[in-house]
């Protein structure tokens, strides 16, 4: 098992260096001077140009710049934002809990609804439940989620006035945030209504972000379940006279869930891409909105650093999923 984990990490290291090269190359090698680009239409004075060039190290040879950047990365130095002057890593760490909270809510919704729906659809294959669920899943899978978010805002925030339009917490409340997770912090604060406010802010973005993973998980669960239900050992279990519930929940489900676990793991990339859109629509102060804002502001050190950090998160989660997959499915390890 250890060898399996180590070999996976071995693949990760060159990929990470590659990711750093790509992020670096985007900003430095593509046509256009990044400093001129960053300064936008207003132009830039010559002194300021020279100052920025020296500050960002752009006056030195490219390989030297890249080496410095890479060694800096390994020491946790992702450069400073040009707009706020704060370290990129620090900004990332401040905003990351908001994205984790949103993503966890989304993936929990997706798993809690998607897996049972997929199982039921597989058991009742061809029934109206199966057809409606799979129709809904395909619609969810085809959904432009930024539009879906706007529709929910129109209905729940505009028409029914149930939920707020944006942000994580009503301005009425103010408290320390030791964990960065609004659901936990609002409970810890002991202020009446704070938790409710946190939930009402979280529910719409959570639903929007959950839409595509939910659809994918439901479809994947159904097809994995159908495949397993056709296997000989399931027929044997049925022939032994076991109850239908036991056959499904004990014999079939365990094996059907193996590919589903991989699917859930793969959703992390989908969640990160979805976070960009969801956070922008709901003004959710997470890393997705941070990346989009930095792109608008041409804050290239942030774009570069953020790109690497997000790729790193995705890579680490995928590694964990791979290891988990090895744990539940011993056949993979020996390969």
């Amino acid at each position, binding site marked *: 098992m250890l060898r399996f984990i180590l070999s996976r990490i071995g693949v990760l290291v060159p990929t990470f260096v590659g990711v750093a090269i790509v992020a670096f190359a985007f900003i430095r090698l593509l046509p256009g001077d990044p400093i001129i680009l960053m300064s936008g239409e207003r132009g830039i004075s010559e002194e300021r140009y020279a100052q920025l060039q020296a500050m960002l190290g752009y006056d030195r040879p490219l390989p030297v710049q890249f080496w410095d950047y890479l060694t800096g990365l390994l020491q946790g130095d992702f450069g400073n934002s040009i707009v706020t002057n704060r370290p990129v890593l620090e900004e990332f760490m401040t905003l990351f809990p908001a994205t984790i909270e949103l993503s966890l809510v989304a993936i929990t919704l997706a798993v809690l609804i998607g897996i049972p729906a997929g199982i039921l659809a597989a058991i009742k294959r061809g029934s109206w439940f199966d057809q409606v669920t799979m129709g809904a899943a395909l619609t969810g899978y*085809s959904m*432009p989620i*930024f539009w879906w978010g706007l529709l929910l*805002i129109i209905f729940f*925030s505009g028409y029914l006035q149930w939920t707020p339009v944006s942000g994580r917490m009503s301005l009425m409340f103010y408290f320390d945030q030791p964990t960065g997770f609004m659901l936990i912090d609002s409970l810890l604060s002991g202020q009446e209504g704070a938790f409710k406010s946190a939930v009402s802010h979280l529910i719409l973005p959570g639903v929007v972000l959950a839409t595509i993973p939910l659809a994918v998980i439901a479809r994947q669960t159904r097809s994995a379940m159908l495949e397993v239900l056709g296997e000989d050992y399931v027929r044997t279990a049925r022939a032994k006279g076991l109850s239908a519930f036991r056959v499904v929940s004990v014999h079939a489900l365990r094996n059907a869930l193996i590919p589903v676990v991989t699917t859930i793991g793969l959703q992390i990339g989908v969640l*990160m891409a979805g976070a*960009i859109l969801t956070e922008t629509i709901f003004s959710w102060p997470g890393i997705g909105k941070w990346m989009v804002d930095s792109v608008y502001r*041409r804050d290239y050190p942030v*774009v570069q650093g953020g790109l690497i950090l997000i*790729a790193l998160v995705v890579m680490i989660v995928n590694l964990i999923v791979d290891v988990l997959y090895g744990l539940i499915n011993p056949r993979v390890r020996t390969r």
Partner: protein
Amino acid sequence: MSHVEADEAREGIGAGIEDRKAKVSPRRQMLKEFWYYFSENKGAVVGLYVFIAIILIAIFAPVLAPYDATAQNRGALLVPPVWADNGSWAYILGTDAVGRDMLSRLIYGARYSLTIGLVVVTLAVTVGISVGLIAGYVRGWVDIVIMRLMDIILAFPSLLLALVLVAVLGPGLLNAMIAIALVLQPHFVRLTRASVMAEKQREYVTAARVVGASPLRLMVVTILPNCLGPLIVQATLSFSSAILDAAALGFLGLGAQPPTPEWGTMLADAQEFVLRAWWVVTFPGLAILITVLAINLVGDGLRDALDPKMKRS
């Protein structure tokens, strides 16, 4: 379509020749068989009809659209659709904030979405298949370098990578299409490589090599046609992802630029009217959803018809 030839290969080259001669046309037979399995899936057939309708709308946009897509009418700002209060038959789906006819913009928008899908898929497929063929056929360090590169591209969430690429290349529809094609092509590389590696071991490939086929001929003429099934399915799915991603980039202000009637860009303009004029928000998104859903339905049907594993179940 591929399994007929694959079966033949399994039995040994030429085993089916007698049969083949007897039939009128094997191509027609294959097409018939394909349609048989495809039409089993009712959703796929509906999706296909809707998709054809969208193509026709795109082609005949100038005939169908009642107004010019960018013509502004200062006298008719934010007119609601015909069935709502204050709606008018002059603007069936209402007008936007500068008095442009929604219906006409949606009709012209179909042209953009289909073009985006077509261009992106063509780019991603040609590059992806060529690179994948080389990786799977040549193997060795070439393969390792290519696959590492693909891993790197796949390590980024696709929309994020496209977003940053477009930001650096400059906002616009063409750059958006290039960026999306780049993030979609690793899937084609992986798929092609995997099928090439599997097919390469088959006897019919060895036979072709013994006869003296060149590597290029082996790759393109002998092996590739037998890997097409999964690639066609992937291309369909990529078509819909391309439309979705381009709309997302347009929505973020980095894809097609106003006043282009691209559906995502229309939504970006409409965002500030979310609580005042529901129709400027609802219709462009609905157009995206219907188009993408139709294509995905077709994709599901294609998978049923082309994947021999699904066929047996």
